[in-house]
Each structure stands twice: as C-alpha cells, then as structure tokens.
C-alpha cells in the first residue's frame, strides 16, 4: 500500500514556523538552569527534524540534527549555556528557516550562511567530543541487507523471562515475524510451576525454532530487538541448505494446557509460513526494508500562491455551530409560518424576521472572528529583532510587549508586519540614545521600547514608544525648509512638523546606518498603513521619547458603505470617508482656472469630481447645479463626488477584483448586493489621485499645444 502524505505538508510547514518562532523566543530569554525552556526548544527542533525526515527534506534533517545534538548537550547539563552558543543557535534558526523555504519548492539551499553555521555548529560540538554513535549504528543496519542468496538453516532458542508479556510483547507476533523471514518449524516447551504457585500473568513457555531462510543473524536479532533484555536468545547457524523443505512442519506442543490464553500455540503454524514458497519471503524482506529507508513522500510544492490556512480555536467553531443551530430554528419557524399565512400572523412574521436579522448579524460577527488572530503573531519577531539591533548598535535596549492577545484580522496582520519592523528599527536606531548620552541626561543606560496593542472603537491601535531623545522639532523643520517641502517662516503645529517625517525622501539621521535611515522608509510605512485603510500618528517630547501610533481597521473583509448611483451603475462609497452628502446649490458653485469646479462648504472650497467623467460612463445628469455631492476626505483632502442618486447604506463584504482580473484605478474592490448583482467599491484616495493626474495631463496638453503654437 502506498500512502501519500504530501497533503500534510502545509500543516508541517505551519508547525515548523511555530516551532522556529518558539525556538527563537526561547533562546532569547534563555537563562542557565531553565530546564523547561531548553526542553521546549529541544522539542521544537526535534519535531522539525522528525517531520522534515518524513517529507524527505534531507538538508533540513541533517542540519537540524546538529542543532539538536547541541541542544541535547545543554539539556543534559553536559554543556554550559553561554552567550556564544545561543548566538550560533539563533543563526541556526535562521538557517533552518532558509532550508525549509528552499526544500518547499524542491530546491537546494545555496545560501552561504548554511555552510558557515554548519561549520560553527561542528566546531562547537567537536569541543565537547560527542561521538557519532548513531551513524555507526545506521551503517551496521544497512550492511545487514547485503548477503548471498543461499538459504541458511538457523537454530533459535527463545527463553523469555516470566514477565515478558507485561511489557505488551506477545511471543506470537515475534514468531509470526520469524515466519515472515522463511520456513519455520517451532517447538514449544512449558515449565509450569505447581498450580498454587502459578501466576496467570506470567509466561512459562520457551521455544525452539528452526528457521530456513536467506537471512543473517542480525535480521533475526532485529525481530527480538524489543525483548532482548527480557529473554535468553541463542541463535546458531546450522548449515547452508540449497533446497527448502516443501512442507513446513507443524508445531509439536508438548503441553496443551498453555496457561496464558493469548499464546495459544496453533496460530503459530502461521499461514504466512505455508503460503511462502521457496525464496519469496526471503527476497521480499530486504525489499520492504529498502522501501522503508526511503522518505515517505518526497514532496515538491508547485510554486503557486498559497491561500494559507488558519488554525481556529474550538470555542470559535462551537459558537458558530450554536448560531447556525439558532438560524435553522428561525428558518423552520418562518417556513412553517409561510405554509398557511394570513394577515393575523403578521406580528409573528415580523418577530421572526427580526430574529433572523439578529441571527445573521451574530453569525457574521462569529465568522469574522475566525479570521482574527492575536497580534502576538506579529509581535513575536521583535524580541529577536531588538536583540540583534542592540548587538549591532551597541545600545542596551529592553523590549516590553503589552496587549499581545489583542485580536486582528489575519490579512491585516500579515501586511502590517513590515511597517512595524521599520518603526521598531527606527526606535532603536534613531530613538534610543547611546548609553553615555543617556547617563549624561540622567536616564538609565538601558533604553526601553514598548509595543502595545488595544482595541478602540472599530479600530485596533498599535503603539511603538521609546524613552529616547524624542524628535528634534527644529531639526525636522530646518530639513523640510532646506528640502523645499515647506516655506520658510510658516508656523506649524508640532503634529504638522512630525508629519513631515512621512514625506518621501525625508531622513533626519545624521549618519546613514545600515539599519534604517536610508531616507526611504517612513513614507513607505505611511503608504502601507494607508493601503490597509489605517493611519499613523506621532507624539514626541524632546528628551522624553516618542510614540508612533498606528490605527488600523479590525478587518478588511467588511465595510459600512453608502450605495450611490451614477448613470445605470451602483457604486459603494466607504461610510468612514464620507464627511457629508448634500444637494449642490447654484450660488455656492464656482468655476476657477477654466474648468475646475469648486463648491463652497463653509470655509472650504471643495473640488467637485464628476464620477461619470473619471469612470468614463454615460450619466443622467452632467450639470453640477442641483446634483448630489458626496463630500469625502482622504489624506486631509476633501472632495465632492458628483453622483446621480443616493441609495441605501449597508454593510458590504469586500471581494477582490484582482483574483480574476486586475487592480483598477479608483476602485478598491467589488461587492455583491442583495439582488446578486456586483457593485464596485470606490477607492477614495485612488479616485482623488486619478482626478489629480487627469488635471495634470490636461495642463500638460495645454502647455504642449501652447509651445507648439509658438514654434
């Protein structure tokens, strides 16, 4: 039977990731004498090695074996836990990660770090002179398969100790296994004590077996491997025979009152033995061994985007099942009501519909919870990062993590990782001062970075704060003036100044280091956060430190939307970006610079964007006067979207357009409305960008035509 285990590869990969994360965090906190931690680290390495072997990831198995050996020595107390070894082990964790990544796609990992770390591990292990008994052992097993094809007659004497069956070993299976090797004839002897001394749970039988098979002594001993300490086993080679007896001899049991029921002698005649003609069993044994040495499933994964999997807590699933149960009850109640409906039952119908609404809402919330994971999944890489950074910069940094259990949508989590890494790097590199400077400022030499996460309304807030020098307001402002980002002489609030940090190409670091501060980054951080529908805020006090606060929506899957009509199309505008909706009054409409329409909204002049024009649609109404304006805001810019009609407000489930099509300018996704039709969701920052670039194109064209006329 061939069993394909490749379906378990994703679960192994997921488990390895977790194991590696556990090893990493364990190693970072490891203190001498902490047996439980070192055991947990060992266990993680051990599981990875075991799984990798199953999937034929030999590079991983070999490498992890070294790591495991080192950890084993630490675990047994044969090796002291020192910083240098921990650094090697941390490097090893990185290597295992690389190796698994490579094997996953069926490649050999060529990264130079592997060889380097392997050398380090070998050197470290060589110092403790750990012998490599295991590989010797393996070699000897393999050699047993080599042998002639001639049949040998063996005389085997098997005298088990009385307590043998108490370890769960049953002699019948051992005898069956022998019968699998070749022809057997078995003689059983009983040495029963007097009846009143007889313990029915003990074994008083011994066996003499004659085996004719093409095997060597090691193969026979292997069968008795599990019981070798609980029996006397004498194996003698009688002769080499060319022919095998045609008929196997039956067992001659001298004593039929066998005291132990499960070792009834007659099954030992083993049908396996009688169906075994001449050399077939002998030949088949090495063959199966051969197969057994091969990896079960050499898995190569197609390089296809992985949809990923989520491990869901049983409580979440249970609550879903409960809710579905309620839904079923409501449904049957409603359908019964519908069977012979009359107007007297309207009240009950309304109550039923109300209940259905409640069920659906709860079900939706429950389903959303499935995608939520504790933010520790994003935070768990930071201890290692801060550890490495503090080594590199020579700054002492302590990392404090709070709110790890705060839950966040899986997709948001995956995409927020890199921006957070950048912010933490920044905090170590630019935030925390060098030790001497801190002491001079009356602070402890060790700086502290705090990561925190909590829910606030429909958002999750992630805070990265440091107790460093704070942001130098004047330095930022001078730099901005120097770069021409702001005019000299303007007055800006603190938060306006700090927002300048997120301008493209802005970096205040005096020295460009290899950690952060290449002048790219903060603007990218802001862009990534905005792409997730979030925002970032900075607070800082000179000499006291800074706090970066990231606000993110809890989920990307659902949004509250305003349905609008443009021509015959329905669009969804995210409610969160809507400032207000109004009917345009003629006296408030102004046209400037030729064709830009501005609408006076109290003190602001809001540019009017005709959606039909931007989306290239036929519209019912092309006149701004009297039309409906939905005033929306993004990046501090307000615009009025010109639409034909305002429809309902409702929650919509966001569906990707990119799965089967591609990204579309001004559109963030699509959704399915109650009637089954599709509606596009307008991307507010996107449509503003579109309008800006349209305007720029128009100007370019205009100036081009001007210059052409001059020529």
């Amino acid at each position, binding site marked *: 039977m061939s069993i394909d285990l490749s379906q378990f590869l994703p679960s192994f990969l997921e488990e390895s990731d977790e194991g590696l994360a556990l090893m990493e965090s364990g190693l970072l906190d490891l203190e001498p004498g902490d047996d439980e931690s070192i055991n947990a680290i060992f266990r993680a390495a051990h599981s990875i090695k075991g799984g990798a072997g199953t999937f034929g990831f030999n590079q991983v198995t070999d490498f992890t074996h070294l790591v495991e050996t080192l950890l084993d020595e630490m675990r047994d107390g044969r090796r002291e836990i020192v910083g240098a070894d921990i650094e090697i082990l941390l490097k090893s964790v990185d290597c295992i990660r690389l190796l698994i990544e490579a094997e996953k796609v069926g490649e050999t990992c060529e990264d130079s770090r592997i060889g380097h770390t392997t050398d380090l591990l070998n050197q470290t292990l060589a110092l403790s002179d750990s012998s490599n008994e295991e590989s010797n052992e393996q070699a000897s097993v393999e050699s047993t398969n080599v042998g002639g094809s001639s049949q040998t007659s063996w005389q085997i004497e098997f005298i088990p100790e009385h307590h043998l069956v108490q*370890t769960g070993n049953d002699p019948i*299976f051992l005898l069956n296994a022998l019968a699998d090797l070749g022809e057997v004839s078995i003689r059983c002897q009983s040495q029963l004590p007097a009846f009143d001394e007889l313990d029915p749970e003990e074994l008083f039988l011994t066996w003499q077996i004659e085996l004719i098979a093409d095997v060597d002594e090691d193969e026979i001993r292997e069968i008795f491997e599990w019981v070798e300490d609980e029996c006397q086993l004498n194996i003698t080679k009688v002769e080499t025979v060319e022919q095998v007896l045609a008929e196997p001899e039956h067992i001659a049991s001298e004593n039929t009152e066998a005291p132990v029921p499960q070792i009834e002698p007659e099954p030992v005649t083993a049908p396996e033995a009688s169906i075994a003609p001449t050399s077939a069993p002998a030949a088949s044994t090495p063959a199966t061994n051969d197969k057994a040495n091969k990896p079960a499933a050499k898995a190569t994964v197609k390089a296809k985007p992985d949809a990923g999997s989520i491990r869901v807590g049983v409580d979440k699933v249970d609550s879903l099942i409960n809710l579905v149960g309620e839904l079923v009850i409501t449904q049957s109640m409603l359908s019964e009501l519908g069977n012979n409906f009359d107007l007297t039952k309207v009240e009950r119908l309304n109550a039923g519909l109300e209940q259905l609404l409640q069920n659906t809402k709860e079900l939706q919330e429950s389903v959303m919870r499935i995608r939520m994971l504790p933010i520790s999944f994003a935070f768990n890489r930071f201890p290692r990062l801060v550890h490495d950074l503090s080594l590199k910069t020579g700054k002492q940094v302590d990392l404090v993590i709070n709110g790890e259990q705060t839950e966040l949508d899986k997709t948001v989590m995956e995409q927020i990782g890199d921006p957070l890494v950048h912010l933490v790097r920044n905090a170590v590199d630019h935030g925390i001062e060098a030790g001497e400077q801190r002491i001079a400022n009356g602070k402890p030499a060790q700086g502290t970075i705090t990561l925190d996460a909590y829910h606030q309304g429909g958002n999750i807030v992630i805070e990265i704060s440091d107790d460093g020098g704070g942001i130098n307001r004047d330095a930022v402002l001078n730099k901005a003036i120097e770069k021409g980002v702001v005019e000299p002489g303007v007055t800006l609030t603190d938060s306006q100044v700090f927002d300048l940090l997120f301008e493209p190409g802005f970096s205040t670091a005096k020295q460009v280091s290899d950690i952060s501060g290449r002048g790219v980054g903060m603007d990218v951080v802001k862009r990534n956060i905005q792409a997730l529908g979030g925002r970032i805020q900075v607070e800082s006090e000179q000499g006291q430190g800074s706090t970066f606060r990231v606000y993110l929506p809890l989920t990307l899957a659902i949004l509250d939307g305003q349905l609008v009509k443009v021509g015959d199309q329905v669009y969804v505008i995210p409610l969160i970006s809507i400032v207000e909706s109004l009917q345009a009054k003629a006296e408030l409409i102004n046209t400037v610079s030729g064709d830009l329409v501005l609408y006076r909204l109290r003190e602001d002049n809001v540019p009017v964007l005709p959606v039909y024009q931007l989306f290239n649609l036929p519209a019912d109404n092309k006149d701004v006067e009297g039309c409906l304006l939905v005033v929306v805001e993004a990046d501090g810019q307000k615009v009025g979207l010109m639409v034909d009609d305002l429809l309902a407000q409702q929650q919509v489930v966001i569906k990707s357009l990119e799965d089967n099509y591609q990204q579309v300018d001004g559109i963030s996704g699509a959704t399915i409305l109650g009637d089954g039709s599709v509606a596009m969701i307008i991307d507010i920052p996107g449509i503003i960008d579109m309008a800006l670039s349209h305007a720029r194109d128009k100007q370019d064209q205009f100036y081009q035509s001007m210059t052409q006329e001059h020529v």
Partner: protein
Amino acid sequence: MANILIVDDSNSIRDMVSFTLKSASYNTVEAKDGLEGLNAAKRSSFDLVITDVNMPNMDGITLCQELRKLPNFRFTPILMLTTESSTDMKMKGKSAGATGWLVKPFNPEKLLATIKRVIR
C-alpha cells in the same frame, strides 16, 4: 477493529500517523501530550498506544509508567515513536514498560509493518 491511541505534541506527525492507520482501517484516537493521552486511556480501552517521548506536560516515559498502573493497560502494547535512536532512550522506555519503539522519520509503510508485530 483495533483501537489505537496516538500521543504526540506535533499536529502534523499526529495527523500523519492517524491518516496512515486509518487507511489501514484501524480506529484512532489522538492526544496532544501525555496527560491528554492518559485521560483518554482512562476513558476507554485501546489495543495499542503509540506515543512520542518528548512532550510537554507529561512525557512519553511517564505516560508509559502511568498506563502500566491502569488495570486494562497492563498488557497493552505501547510503542514509543521517537527520533532518538540512542540505546539510552530505548532502555529508559523499556524500563518504563514500553513494548518497543518506532524510529522517526516517520514512514507509513514501516509503521504499518511494525505494528503488525504487536497487534493482529
């Protein structure tokens, strides 16, 4: 139909062992550490126990010792599933009452061949 208890802290190994045994038409019950395994054993009988050695909460050696104290597990075969092929670990297992051992990397054919040596 033989009932087999599988105890391992690694989900993937547990899944693979269980899958292999089920495809050979055995019934399986899974537990993620020794303690859970022991509780499962107290609730029902098994024809075979396959356990990992190194696990949190209760390791395989302790599980083995505890199982042997239960009246209906005195003669039940217990196999240790382990990558540790060191004689030391095997002896520890034996003295705790284990029947035998299976050396990882886990291989389905080998597993099925080996358990034929302890159950029908």
